[in-house]
């Protein structure tokens, strides 16, 4: 008799996967489950706090500049500072960062000057030209399209057997784009030294995560590409750094790519051009303020006796000073001569376009 009734539940399982979550620092600054080794280094934790505070202060200033017509559209990272800073802090200078437009914290950590960041958002390409590691990519505006670049960069490292890692940061919205998929899939095939970081702030402009994807986590998207994914509390800078360190060092060690989902929340508007009140209730935002990353690290450091009012005030003043200097430099920078729009079009401007440059120069002379 060849007919025994079967049900789909009888089918054998041929592959199993799981996604873990990493969090050390609770919202109140307590650490119920212990801490990773590096957290013994208080001065390191303080540097993370300082970087997050600088990022937030800088964001505030940038918005003020935009509101008064002295800066273009700007994207704050309010509430997400732990992601930018935590990730960047685990990178070496020789690693390559491929950031989205919302990762100012990472750029600042890696040495980009405030003046340059402002220049870029103020409408001058030269903001991308100098500070920070020369091999870091500029902000990527077309969402997700930097992911294949990251794979190309990582491939170059692998081919040359350089112990370097590419780190690609993008938002939850970016995970919907084929670009990410194609890059992750290739990274899996080639076991590239590449760490993907989904900065999951749960919104893509007005589109909430639930309409962006039906997957319970973003971390599990790595399963499709055959490498591990992990979710991390993106408001816990210690967890972000720990996850980044683990992934970056594994990648450096030839173990291939990883995906880190850093779950956080966009406390601000999408950009200065956006009014989030149109699409999400203020109560939701209010609720998430409880989880924000700076307060909890501060509480932790205070409890450790390593931080207090004096330090806080000194830090505020320092940030203020740095930012003011950067702003002053930015505001003092005259627009480039119009004909410079041809300077970096090609290695050498083709003769066919010389008259166009001349015309622009003439225009501006006139």
């Amino acid at each position, binding site marked *: 008799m060849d007919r025994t009734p079967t049900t789909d539940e009888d089918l054998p399982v041929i592959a199993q996967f799981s996604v873990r979550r990493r969090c050390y620092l609770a919202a109140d600054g307590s650490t119920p489950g212990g801490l990773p080794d590096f957290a013994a280094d208080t001065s390191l934790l303080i540097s993370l706090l300082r970087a997050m505070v600088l990022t937030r202060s800088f964001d505030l200033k940038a918005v003020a500049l935009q509101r008064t017509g002295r800066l273009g559209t700007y994207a704050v990272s309010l509430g997400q500072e732990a992601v930018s800073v935590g990730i960047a802090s685990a990178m070496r200078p020789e690693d390559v960062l491929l950031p989205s437009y919302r990762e100012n914290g990472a750029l600042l950590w890696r040495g980009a000057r405030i003046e340059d960041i402002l220049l870029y958002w103020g409408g001058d390409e030269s903001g991308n030209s100098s500070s920070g590691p020369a091999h870091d990519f500029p902000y990527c505006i077309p969402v997700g399209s930097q992911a294949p670049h990251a794979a190309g960069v990582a491939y170059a490292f692998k081919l040359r057997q350089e112990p370097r890692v590419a780190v690609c940061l993008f938002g939850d919205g970016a995970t919907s*784009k084929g670009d990410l998929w194609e890059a992750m899939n290739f990274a899996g095939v080639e076991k590239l030294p590449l760490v993907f970081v989904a900065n999951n702030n749960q919104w893509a402009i007005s589109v909430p995560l639930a309409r962006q994807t039906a997957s319970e986590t973003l971390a599990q998207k790595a399963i499709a590409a055959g490498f591990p994914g992990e979710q991390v509390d993106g408001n816990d800078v210690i967890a972000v750094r720990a996850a980044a360190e683990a992934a970056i060092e594994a990648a450096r060690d030839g173990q291939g790519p990883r995906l880190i989902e850093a779950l956080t929340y966009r406390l601000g508007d999408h950009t200065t051009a956006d009014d989030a009140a*149109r699409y999400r209730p203020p109560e939701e935002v209010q609720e998430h303020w409880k989880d924000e990353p700076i307060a909890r690290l501060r509480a932790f450091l205070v409890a450790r006796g390593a931080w207090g009012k004096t330090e806080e005030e000194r830090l505020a003043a320092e940030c203020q000073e740095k930012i003011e200097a950067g702003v002053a430099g930015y505001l003092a920078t005259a627009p480039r001569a119009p004909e410079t729009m041809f300077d970096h079009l090609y290695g050498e401007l083709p003769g066919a*376009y010389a008259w166009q440059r001349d015309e622009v120069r003439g*225009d501006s002379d006139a």
Partner: protein
Amino acid sequence: MPEVTLVEAINLALARAMQDDPEVVVLGEDVGVNGGVFRATAGLQERFGPGRVIDTPLAELLISGLCVGMSAQGLRPVGEIQFMGFIYPCLDQLVNHASRLRNRTQGRITCPMVLRTPSGAGIHAPEHHSESIEAMLAHIPGLRVVFPSSPERAYGLLLAAIRDPDPVVFIEPTRLYRTARGEVEDSGEALPLDVAFVLLEGSDVTLISWGAMVKETLAAAEVLADDGFGAEVIDLATLKPYDEQTVLASVAKTGRCVIVHEAARTGGFGAEIAALIAERGLNSLLAPVARVTGYDTVIPLSRLEQHYMPSVERIVTAARQVCQFG
């Protein structure tokens, strides 16, 4: 008649089309609850529900591909690409599918879809937000490409695009979204898709433009009038297929022609019009054709963008030369 902005006219046309035809659906990033980053779809989701006004995931290829599948099933999808700089992932779907599914199936499956997208510089936007690639699109057989320049034409042409049985890319001049105002009657009447609009008659020189540059072109015509040159101003409005007759008739009359567009010069759609004239209008031509265009460089960020875009002055200078030639 109420005065509305260009983006409000778009909104009126969308609402009208959705009300008249239950097959019309709107989809794109932030088009639903948020009503679109430029508010072109404001109020539509409230009125027609989330089934017909769909907030998609962040994926432009998907948006264009969904339109193909939906329209193959008889829906009339109107997809929004948030900025033209993000339309490139749609090209595969536009070229390989939307514009040829009718032909591939010899009429069995068709794609009555519209892809809307704002285009052009001049609003101090970030990188990649200032593209003008209408020429690439107008090279694609089987597609229609429309690029209005006033609230009235935006309204009538969008209705026509939605009702057209074939795929249409509908390009909207970002710079005019809120600055162009005009009286628009929400009559539900479409404008023809294959007719250029003569905005000003004149007999000395033909000025041809489309999209946001029509504004500067009209301003240039005023300056030229002061000079004593009568400019005929044509808003091409539909670029593919375009109204060759109106162009040739005007050039036959004036003998002189200046074409104005914001896109990069080489291979811009101005080349097509100049070529038409070189082929079929040569006899009447009294002076070289002139193109006043964006330069063959990457459009600069906001600090320099005004030096990239054709200015009234550049148009006037070119037109004067053309008028004084020979």
